[in-house]
């Protein structure tokens, strides 16, 4: 039997009593490239972190690949926001990608030659092999994001979570990243991307989760990407724009 890649039932999250996510339920099938969009402060990153059980939730069930998240952690890869990383950390590009092999290494085991070759292969896939010996802080924003995507690839995961991967990224890196994410979906993997920019949402994703604390819309891009639905999610911003006479 085939399970949903992710199924969420009635998820509630709050910070000190302030509700950040209210009663979200949805289910994503494998092989989808899903964008989470919504205005600033809509709780997109919170939603992602709650899915991964990185922050406590008040209520709700999250199943990934038909199991609880703690049973399938080795089958998921998470790419953090770029400003969550210390780019001065003494680590080279190849070693950063090599971290992706750690989840599948046993305790006390070090990565072997074959792990290093695999990390290099992942680095080639994002077109960053010639930078393998550089310190990560020497790269541009787009290159850094490609390295982190390579790390996620090295994890051999089934479900990928990316938090704002296109912030501060140049056009060609963005194209490379989107191309690879699409390839992953063709291989039957599931990719969930927090994305703040509406303009390209319909090109990049085949499903959208439109969020503004509660679930405003979910489904195929063509269904969700309608002016009236988007307007409901962004109504505070739109009201502001009306006042400005835009």
């Amino acid at each position: 039997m085939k399970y949903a890649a992710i199924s969420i039932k009635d998820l509630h999250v709050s910070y000190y009593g302030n509700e950040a996510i209210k009663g979200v339920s949805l289910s994503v099938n494998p092989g989808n490239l899903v964008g989470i969009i919504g205005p600033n402060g809509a709780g997109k990153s919170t939603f992602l972190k709650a899915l991964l059980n990185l922050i406590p939730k008040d209520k709700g069930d999250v199943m990934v690949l038909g199991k609880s998240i703690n049973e399938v952690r080795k089958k998921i890869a998470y790419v953090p926001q770029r400003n969550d990383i210390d780019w001065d950390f003494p680590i080279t590009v190849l070693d950063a990608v090599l971290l992706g092999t750690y989840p599948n290494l046993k305790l006390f085991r070090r990565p072997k030659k074959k792990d290093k070759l695999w990390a290099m292969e992942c680095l080639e896939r994002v077109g960053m092999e010639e930078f393998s010996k550089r310190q990560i802080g020497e790269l541009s924003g787009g290159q850094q994001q490609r390295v982190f995507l390579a790390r996620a690839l090295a994890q051999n995961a089934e479900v990928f979570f990316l938090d704002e991967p296109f912030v501060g990224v140049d056009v060609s890196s963005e194209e490379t990243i989107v191309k690879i994410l699409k390839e992953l979906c063709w291989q039957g993997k599931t990719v969930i991307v927090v994305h703040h920019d509406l303009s390209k949402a319909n090109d990049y994703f085949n499903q959208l989760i439109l969020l503004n604390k509660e679930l405003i819309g979910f489904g195929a891009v063509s269904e969700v990407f309608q002016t009236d639905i988007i307007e409901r999610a962004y109504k505070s911003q739109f009201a502001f724009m009306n006042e400005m006479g835009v």
Partner: protein
Amino acid sequence: MAFIEAVMQYGFLQKALLTSVMVGIICGVIGCFIILRGMALMGDAISHAVLPGVAISYMLGINFFFGAVFSGVLTAIAIGFVTQNSRIKHDTSIGIMFTAAFAAGIIVITMLKSSTDLYHILFGNVLAVRSSDMWITLAIGLFVLGAVYLFYKELLVTSFDETMGAAYGLPVRMIHYFLMTLLTMVTVASLQTVGIVLVVAMLITPAAAAYLLTERLSIMIFLSAGIGVTSAVVGLYFSFTYNLASGATIVMAATAIFILVFLFSPKHGLLWKMLKVRKKRASLI
């Protein structure tokens, strides 16, 4: 040369040297993780927080190692608890908790009416190291190095990207407290060499110098340990030769190395940076 002869001749100096070298190594190694995690202040706090544990151990007549680890880890937990359960920021929480522990320690020691002990605990007296102390330092050293070797992977991931570690199922909070425990043990091992007040310098200064010299954590750890050992030996030499407090001379030696690295490090040194800027500007004229 008189120093080398003296080392050959006197047992107390051999013990002092061996203990200092061990302290240089373990402080250098743990210090790398402390500064990369942005926990320099935490290092200072935990080193002060072992004082009440040491004092109470004296009072109860047990080995001070156990009391010190207990009060150090307890303080680390209290700091975390206050940060997570109020709007108090982390550095403020650290300031509250470690001064409280330190004050409690001073009161207990005053009650014991032994101010010489207090002085030695605070500032170290490496020339008075007994064999039993040396063995404790050696055992702690081997334990700490073994732990870092075995859990290197986990320490690397959680220092660099803790969220990734948590996402793939590492017990990140447990690793944090494990590191705090190692930190406390290192502090205890350093008590007699540099003393509570200056341990933080041995944790941070060699690691910071190493940080300016390399782009790889593994190399940074070895460099930091090497700088720690060099500082310890040079410091001990000055302490013995000019009859100065060992903790102070060792820390000054480490600081001198840091200043040299800060100025002349091939990639991050101030001097080369300035030369590069000047060359660039000259080429534009």
